């Protein structure tokens, strides 16, 4: 007995010493830093997400500069600079050098931040692979100084380790700039930084992005609109979307003095009547103290909350891109000849509001060979990995594209010169894993994506039919011109009339008969 206690104490000692940072060190693959290519992408992504979220909150038209410098074969420096509101001095070390600081995890609000562990993960990865500190400059007002920091993370304590803290001249009204050096690999293609930034530019038409590649190529993604996205509102959790663990945590942290008060003030769509009904159903007194709720009681309450009828959460908390702006985004980045966009009204899955937006670009200079290119987005962030595991992919491949003018064999990706953009905006995007690459397969979500795809598909089909028919019509005219000499020579033999006379007359009739022939195909007037 005593011996066991001692072992347990030993274990406890060891356990205490495993900090979040150390956990990260050992499990970096869970967080998207599993290979050098992906580490580079994650770093650019976290920095851009922060910049865009900050600009949206501060109502600033974003102007972001991303630069990737090649230091050595397997070493790169990522520099991201924005014109955002800047960060107050005290916050800088914690935001960049403390893991999970200010995590948006329990907040139900549509923002980019839900999708990564945060920029501090990149700082840690940098120090693990290069031993170097990350450099941050931030300025919050033209009359205030710019703060310069060189930061590392104390991995055993998960606290910032400040190497330099200075005031510097920075010729900028406000904004933040970070420099992170890391072991990485740069490559082009579907899962590249290039592709990521292009995706960001499509779904953030309000942003101007300047990107300098490792090959010193400068790409400027111009702003397509001065219209700022409406800031999404944070909402209270809906009883249908809560998990037991979170409910228990909320019960202990609440400042409400009664269970009824807790339910009405910390959840949306629960009034006193509904709260009472839930308590009754759980066999709990509505006046009891939330902190006094035992684990068993919490479970009963949880079940009661799922059973009582509650109206759907409000959906005006979302900030979709909107059909017109999405179209602007597509037009500036995809060289197609036809664009369709659809932005569907918000609906709800498991108590979380979400909205699906779809854009299709067709024809023009888009690749004519091979399957359609699918671009997936969640809360305006491109999803580049795990396409096969994503609900969006399932919705696209399960849609029958043949009636919409694209080729498709079975339940495969359709084939044709098209790009399909699918954006899911939600207060809580359900990812399949912590790496947050793929959206989980909820029926409500797949159904909504399919409806949006069908809506776009119908318009695409109309366009393709008209377009292709116009082409066929021309081909047919050319064909008649080839038939005419043959018919003329046969008729000349039969009748004795001169072949050239017959030919000339037939060519004249062809012009006259052309409009009638369109009708023969049921296409209507060309």
């Amino acid at each position, binding site marked *: 007995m005593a011996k066991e206690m001692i072992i347990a104490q030993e274990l406890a000692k060891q356990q205490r010493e495993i900090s979040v940072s150390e956990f990260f060190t050992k499990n970096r693959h869970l967080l998207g830093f599993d290979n050098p290519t992906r580490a580079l992408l994650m770093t650019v992504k976290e920095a851009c997400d922060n910049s865009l979220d900050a600009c949206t909150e501060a109502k600033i038209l974003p102007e972001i500069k991303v630069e990737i410098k090649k230091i050595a074969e397997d070493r790169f420096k990522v520099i991201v600079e924005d014109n955002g509101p800047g960060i107050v001095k005290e916050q800088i070390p914690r935001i960049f050098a403390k893991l999970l600081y200010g995590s948006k995890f329990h907040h139900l609000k549509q923002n980019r931040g839900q999708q990564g562990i945060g920029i501090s993960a990149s700082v840690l990865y940098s120090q693990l692979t290069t031993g170097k500190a990350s450099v941050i400059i931030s300025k919050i007002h033209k009359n205030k100084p710019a703060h310069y920091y060189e930061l590392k993370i104390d991995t055993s304590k998960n606290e910032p380790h400040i190497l330099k803290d200075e005031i510097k001249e920075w010729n900028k009204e406000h904004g933040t700039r970070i420099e992170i050096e890391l072991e990485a690999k740069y490559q082009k293609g579907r899962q590249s930084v290039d592709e990521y930034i292009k995706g960001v530019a499509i779904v953030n038409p309000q942003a101007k992005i300047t990107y300098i590649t490792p090959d010193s190529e400068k790409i400027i993604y111009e702003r397509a609109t001065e219209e700022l996205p409406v800031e999404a509102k944070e909402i209270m959790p809906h009883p249908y979307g809560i998990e037991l663990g979170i409910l228990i945590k909320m019960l202990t942290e609440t400042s409400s003095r009664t269970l009824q008060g807790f339910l009405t003030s910390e959840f949306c769509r629960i009034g006193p009547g509904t709260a009472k009904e839930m308590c009754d159903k759980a066999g709990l007194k509505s006046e009891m103290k939330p902190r006094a709720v035992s684990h068993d009681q919490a479970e009963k309450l949880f079940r009661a909350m799922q059973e009582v009828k509650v109206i759907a959460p409000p959906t005006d908390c979302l900030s979709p891109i909107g059909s017109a702006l999405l179209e602007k985004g597509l037009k500036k980045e995809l060289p197609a000849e036809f664009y369709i966009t659809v932005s569907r009204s918000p609906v709800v899955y498991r108590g979380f509001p979400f909205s699906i937006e779809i854009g299709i670009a067709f024809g023009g200079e888009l690749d004519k060979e091979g399957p359609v290119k699918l671009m997936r987005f969640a809360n305006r962030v491109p999803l580049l990995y795990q396409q096969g595991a994503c609900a969006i992919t399932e919705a696209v491949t399960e849609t029958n594209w043949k009636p919409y003018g694209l080729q498709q064999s079975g339940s495969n990706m359709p084939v044709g010169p098209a790009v399909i953009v699918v954006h899911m905006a939600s207060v809580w995007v359900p990812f399949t894993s912590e790496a947050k690459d793929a959206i989980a397969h909820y029926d409500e979500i797949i159904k909504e994506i399919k409806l949006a795809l069908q809506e776009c598909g119908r318009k695409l089909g109309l366009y393709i039919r008209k377009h292709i028919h116009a082409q066929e019509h021309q081909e*047919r005219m050319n*064909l*008649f011109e*080839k*038939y005419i*000499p*043959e*018919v003329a*020579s*046969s*008729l000349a*033999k*039969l*009748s*004795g*009339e001169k072949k050239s006379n*017959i030919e000339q*007359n*037939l060519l*004249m*009739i*062809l012009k*006259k*008969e052309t409009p*009638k*022939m369109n009708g*023969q*195909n049921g296409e209507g007037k060309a």
Partner: protein
Amino acid sequence: MDKMAKGKHNHGKEALTELGNDIVADIRKKKNPTINLPVRALSNVSFDTKKKSLVLGNKVAERSFFNVAHAKKFLQTVEVASVAKELLQQEKHASLRDVFYMAKRTIPGTKINIVDEQVESDGVIEDLELITGASREQLHMTANKMGSVVGNVTIEDAGDTIHWDKLGSGGYSVPSSVEDIKFKDVKANYILYMEKAAVWERLNEDKFWKKNNCIIISSQGQTTRGIRRLLQRFYEEYKLPIYVLCDNDPYGYWIYFVIKYGSINLAGQSERLTIPGVKYLGITCDDIEKYDLKKHFIKMKDTDHARLKQIAEYPWLKDDKHWQRQFKMMKQMDAKVEIQSLSSKGISFISESYLPNKIKNKEFLD
């Protein structure tokens, strides 16, 4: 303009020239050149109860050049017509296969052939027969000759005198056009036509025609127009009874009905092809019982049942009690029986017993 009614000449050349002139007249008037032709389909065929044969109705289809659906057919029609006119001008005959190759050509600047398969040119030739009123033989286009005949008959063909009773084992081969054959001496009492060439060889070896003083004639499968016309001439010029011997299956029945009433496709030429007085000798469903042929059943396929149903529903057979009884029996037995199954009773059972008895007892269907 009705190019069809005008074309009832027998002179192919003139009819073709007129067809050409009519189309060119359309073109001069800047009209979409159009050929009218009777519809060759069940919907435009009726049974003439007086003549007891199929006749073509009045439905006319238009074939216009400047119509996406018709253009190629139109081109094929004028092309094959010009081939026919050339043949007539040069006084030469060409086989249907020759005509196919004479019309087959890739249109310059395209990957399109004027005709790709012989069935296309064959179909256009049948159209031209209706358009011009001249048979394909009159347009100097001939089908492969097929089929043999022997019997107590002497004819003159292309200046040669031919005795049909002195032709050994092969017999006289029936040409595709029999119009110019002269019958010099016809001693036979009746004609026996059979679907199978192999049965004809059996009967010729047994000298069935000599013993029974008849003519035996066969083609392989579907009866050629040459043979149908030859049978009709014997029937009309010498009033010879004609008996038909086919397999007991829907196809065999169909062969018989085409000889008797004509076909939908050639309803326009019924007058010179059909023989309403022809009789069906066998094999019948009753023969199966009588001669115990059940053990030689061949199971009917879905396509056989479909064809049987189609035949049974033809308006000209719908009220024929005797035939409907056969159709019903065949359907119930779900089986076909070949003529040659009679050989199970002995190689010459057919010539020594089956046929003489049937004819003597007038055991046939009308």
